[in-house]
């Protein structure tokens, strides 16, 4: 039972890592039905920005709390700027064109960003210092969960609540929902859809940056390629939970994390990825729109 609990908690921690990335994925998809493959790269760039600014502040002898706060803030701003720019140059010109074009454009952006970081930074793995606090009271339970995992879990929960609130109860959220339902109609009733979509990308990218900082702190390393692998898993999680749904992305991530963790623990880690895709297939067979996804009725 203790073993099960350990595996369950490590699955939860893993799930919250996926969820942090999946939230941004699902949000962008929910509004403009585009699978933003560059999302993983934004996450990686967020990590790199925090690494660079963090190192800079730290070398100036600033306190750890300050370093953490400002490097996270700057990486959010930087990543948001990236998100905004990408949407403007790579997705906006393709709006209204077949959805496949935007998808291919997204894959292209993903490759461009990866290679940009590869050339501008390094191809090597770099150590990522952890500026996150260590909880002393958690020390006796370190076999179950550590401080960084707990922080990631907490941040994921907070972001999920905030996003849900933003979309359900604010003016901007209402505009987003309107855009998601019907772009033309939203425009007709006076919603500035360019602004709304830009805002979606800015928020999505900011989330990716937060994820980047936290997950890199957890892994203790960063590399230009980490976004791709994390992006794929987060995408699976988002689809599993019902892409477009905020709580769905979180639930899907947890299901994925639990499956992988328990599969590894009781069967073999050789098939970790296989478990992830088997659960995806099983759920899509039973409920094609994902666990919490809503079916859209096609009007004929």
């Amino acid at each position: 039972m203790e073993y099960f609990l350990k595996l369950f908690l490590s699955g939860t921690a893993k799930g919250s890592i996926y969820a942090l990335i999946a939230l941004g994925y699902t949000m962008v998809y929910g509004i403009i039905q585009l699978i933003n493959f560059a999302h993983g790269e934004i996450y990686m760039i967020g990590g790199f920005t925090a690494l660079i600014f963090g190192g800079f502040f730290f070398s100036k002898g600033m306190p750890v709390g300050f370093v953490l706060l400002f490097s996270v803030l700057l990486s959010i701003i930087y990543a948001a700027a990236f998100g905004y720019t990408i949407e403007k140059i790579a997705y906006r010109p393709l709006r209204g064109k077949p959805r496949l074009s935007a998808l291919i454009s997204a894959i292209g952006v993903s490759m461009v960003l990866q290679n940009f970081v590869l050339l501008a930074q390094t191809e090597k793995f770099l150590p990522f210092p952890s500026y996150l606090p260590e909880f002393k009271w958690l020390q006796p339970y370190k076999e179950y969960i550590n401080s960084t995992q707990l922080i990631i879990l907490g941040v994921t929960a907070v972001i999920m609540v905030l996003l849900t609130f933003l979309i359900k109860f604010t003016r901007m959220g209402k505009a987003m929902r309107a855009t998601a339902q019907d772009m033309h109609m939203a425009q007709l009733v006076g919603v500035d859809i360019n602004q709304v979509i830009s805002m979606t990308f800015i928020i999505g990218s900011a989330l990716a940056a937060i994820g980047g900082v936290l997950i890199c702190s957890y892994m203790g390393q960063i590399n230009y390629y980490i976004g791709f692998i994390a992006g794929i898993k987060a995408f699976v999680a988002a689809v599993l939970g019902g892409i477009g749904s905020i709580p769905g992305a979180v639930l899907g991530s947890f299901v994925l994390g639990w499956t992988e963790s328990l599969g590894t623990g009781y069967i073999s880690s050789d098939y970790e990825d296989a478990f992830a895709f088997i659960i995806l297939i099983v759920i899509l067979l039973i409920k094609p729109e994902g666990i919490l996804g809503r079916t859209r009725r096609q009007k004929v």
Partner: protein
Amino acid sequence: MRQPPVFDEIIYEAMRTLDMKYQDIYSSQELASFIIYAHILHMRKEEYKMKRRNMVLAVFAMVSLLVLSGTQSVFAAPIKIGVAGAHTGDLASYGLPTVNAAKLVVKDFNDKGGINGQKVELVIEDDQCKPELATNVAAKLVSSKVVAVIGHICSGATKAALGIYKDSKIVTISPSATNPPLTQSGEYPNFFRTIASDDAQAKLATNFLIKTLKLKKIAVLHDKGDYGKGFAELVKQYAEEDGIQVALFEGISPGAPDYSAVINKISNAKVDGVVWGGYHPEASKLVQQMKDKGMNISFISDDGIKDDTFIEVAGKYSEGVYATGPTDTSTNPLAIKAIADHKKEFGAEPGAFFLNAYGATQALLNAIAKAGSTDYNKIVAALQSEYVDTALGNISFDKRGDIIGFGFSVFQVQNGKYVELK
């Protein structure tokens, strides 16, 4: 008794003629003893003069002997050494450094007067790493009466050529053929190599964890890749042969952010050590997440983590981690000289297997010199019994032909640096 005067010549002259001027100072007994003393001194001096004359004679004889033997070597037939490998084609970059290495070593030996008065001559043949060409090359080298062959480069080509050399009793030393059966099958007693075989790393790591760390129960993890999984499978096989329990043998997904599930599994299996077959990015996450969970068990890995990036990334978590890797030659003066010579002679950094080939040629020529002849059995015996200083370190060969003294060593991270464990 008073001290006699210092100069023995004076004493001798004085005493012999019983000079009157000492009569007041010394008693007659003293004078007598002085005379005897002086006589002995005189005798010794005579003896010394004789010896010197003999020495001059001996030196003269030696010089004339050297001159004679020198003139002889001009007429003596050179010792022919074959150099075979890929010198053209896709794999030329693996073969050409060996040619350069052999040329440099042979030049060094010939400048010092050759081996036992005989000059060394190279016969260079290209096999393009193709087994069918390698047999032709071997036949050609045999007919040009080479004493030994440095090569071949690729395992396949080496295997194809070895049978021919074996029948003609030609010693063959490869700087790069790593296929284990070449030596382990015992089929080719004429074959030697200056590179560790493919399984040497796994064997070394297993021996280390059994003999030095005395582990009883281990977990073996790998990254599912050719290199990592190959290493892990061999470690598992060797460990089980030696009665070590491999409680866990699993592949993990490279690049995943989190390995806590598999670490929970390791902790549940209650092992004394973890063997990792793979590269450093996953290894640093594994050691970090293991230590975060309070697990302090040995972590042993391969050449894939024997990289300073691992220490940089894993930081304090890397402390105490073991890794096997090629023996360090960077401080060996002979290796430094070999590389410097290469730059001087060919104007470039040496390529793949250069030092292995350099060491192979040095070992071979030394063995011929020690054997005192080009007889096959004597050369083989010399290779297996003599330790020689080469660019690879102080090396010799075991009965199967694998190199001793160079290959893989175990390293441990100590104070942020890889330290070779002796």
